[in-house]
């Protein structure tokens, strides 16, 4: 129970901070919408091998991309706070490291869901057709994935010294993950070796599952594999992130 209360206190603090910073909130919301609006129309004449229009393939991809790019960089804010001594101050209280991590992660998930809803709305305006249940389920996938990546990002931020180091690592890890998981174009278009490489990237299974649920397919092997991989990734990242959060090197 104290874990829930503590997580709620941390969540409230960071949600208020997010809502206060209207500039970053506005631009953060705008960026994925611009991406969809300016990139999506390029694909409408291609057959991407996914049922329905190209929006059916692209919108789930951009959702997962949002979770990946947004999630992997949340640690940057933590790093700034760490250097200000805010994190240490909170750690010298009875609150557990897990609550310090989960409260923030939850804020990130809520922020991402708000962005995602706008993104799906814009997708529908462009021509995405998906059942409501499928959209809700798809957003659930994205939420769990975002939690995993946020937790991982925070764990990393607790163990590197400077923002440039952090950004270099996050960029270098994020870019191949994005390309290998078939976010923008499905991996069914890839040559054999690339397709094989993408099989080891967990995000691939998440995005494939989201594409399936957006088409109204809920109980097939792709969806179940996606669910298992996403949930497993989240469990590993949260446990790992909490451990890194509890430990400091200097």
């Amino acid at each position, binding site marked *: 129970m*104290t874990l829930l209360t*503590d997580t709620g*206190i941390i969540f409230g*603090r960071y949600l*208020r*901070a997010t809502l*206060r*910073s209207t500039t970053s909130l506005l631009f953060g919301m705008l960026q994925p919408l611009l991406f969809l609006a300016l990139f999506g129309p390029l694909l409408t004449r291609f057959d991407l091998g996914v049922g329905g229009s190209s929006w059916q393939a692209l919108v789930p991809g951009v959702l997962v991309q949002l979770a990946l790019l947004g999630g992997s960089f949340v640690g940057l804010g933590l790093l700034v*706070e760490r*250097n*200000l*001594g*805010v994190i*240490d*101050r*909170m*750690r*010298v*209280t*009875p*609150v557990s490291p897990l609550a310090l991590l989960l409260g923030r992660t939850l804020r990130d998930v809520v922020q991402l869901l708000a962005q995602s809803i706008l993104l799906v709305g814009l997708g529908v305006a462009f021509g995405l057709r998906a059942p409501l249940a499928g959209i809700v389920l798809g957003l659930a996938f994205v939420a769990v994935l975002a939690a995993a990546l946020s937790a991982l990002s925070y764990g990393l931020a607790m163990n590197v010294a400077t923002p440039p180091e952090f950004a270099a690592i996050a960029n270098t890890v994020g870019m191949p993950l994005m390309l290998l998981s078939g976010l923008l174009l499905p991996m069914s278009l890839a040559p054999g070796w690339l397709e094989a490489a993408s099989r080891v990237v967990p995000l691939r299974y998440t995005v494939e599952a989201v594409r399936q649920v957006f088409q109204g397919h809920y109980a097939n092997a792709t969806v179940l594999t996606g669910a298992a991989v996403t949930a497993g990734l989240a469990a590993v990242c949260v446990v790992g992130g909490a451990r890194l959060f509890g430990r*400091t*090197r*200097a």
Partner: protein
Amino acid sequence: MPEPAIHVRGLMRTFTLAQGPVHAVRGIDLTVERGEILGFLGPNGAGKTTTVRMLTTLLPPSGGHAEVAGRDLLADPAGVRRRIGYVAQSGGLDPGCGVREELITQGRLHRLTRRQAGERAEELAGDLALTELMDRPTAALSGGQRRRLEIALGLVNRPEVLFLDEPSTGLDPGSRAELWELIRRIRAGHGTTVFLTTHYLDEADALADRIVVVDAGAVVAEGTPAELKSRHTGDPAASLQDAFLAITGRTTAGEPLSI
């Protein structure tokens, strides 16, 4: 004889860097009695902050034992955290956050109810002259106001032991004098034990009941300011500066000049 507020034996910390191990703290012994203000004095890089980070549970020691506020540091770190306050050198304020919100959140993290946390925030604001500033973002505070808020955050849980790491760094002389007065007032009002690190000799002289001098990760001298002065210079009228020079062979500003 009541148990001491802090009891440390053989506390060590070694950092492993690419260039090899760095022995930041090499076996410190010290005792701080309840209600005492201890000046933990040493030049930059002496291991003061590393010691404070170990005693406040932020950094696991490489060796040694310590009891802080009656709790074993290694066996019951959560018990230690409940009973201490810690004000880091960097302060720990979020510039976007409001003064009241910082105080209330800190109270909530110490398991106060919403109402208790609100009351405690007002009470501390009254005590530390922050009442007028409660609705400002912390970024809008002056240096002296910031320091008062940081100390208020450290006092939210009515700690038995308050750790202040270089509290007067960056303050103007007026704010420094106010800070010293505040520290004396905290001890007088609540019998709080204060563990204060500083590299300012005048600060240790003015505030501390007893001084522990550290250099290169080890305790090199210990005593009341008067004892240190007469013991290390043979002259009771000497300044603490003279005693410090005699003890460490250098000024607090860094290495001796060899010109």
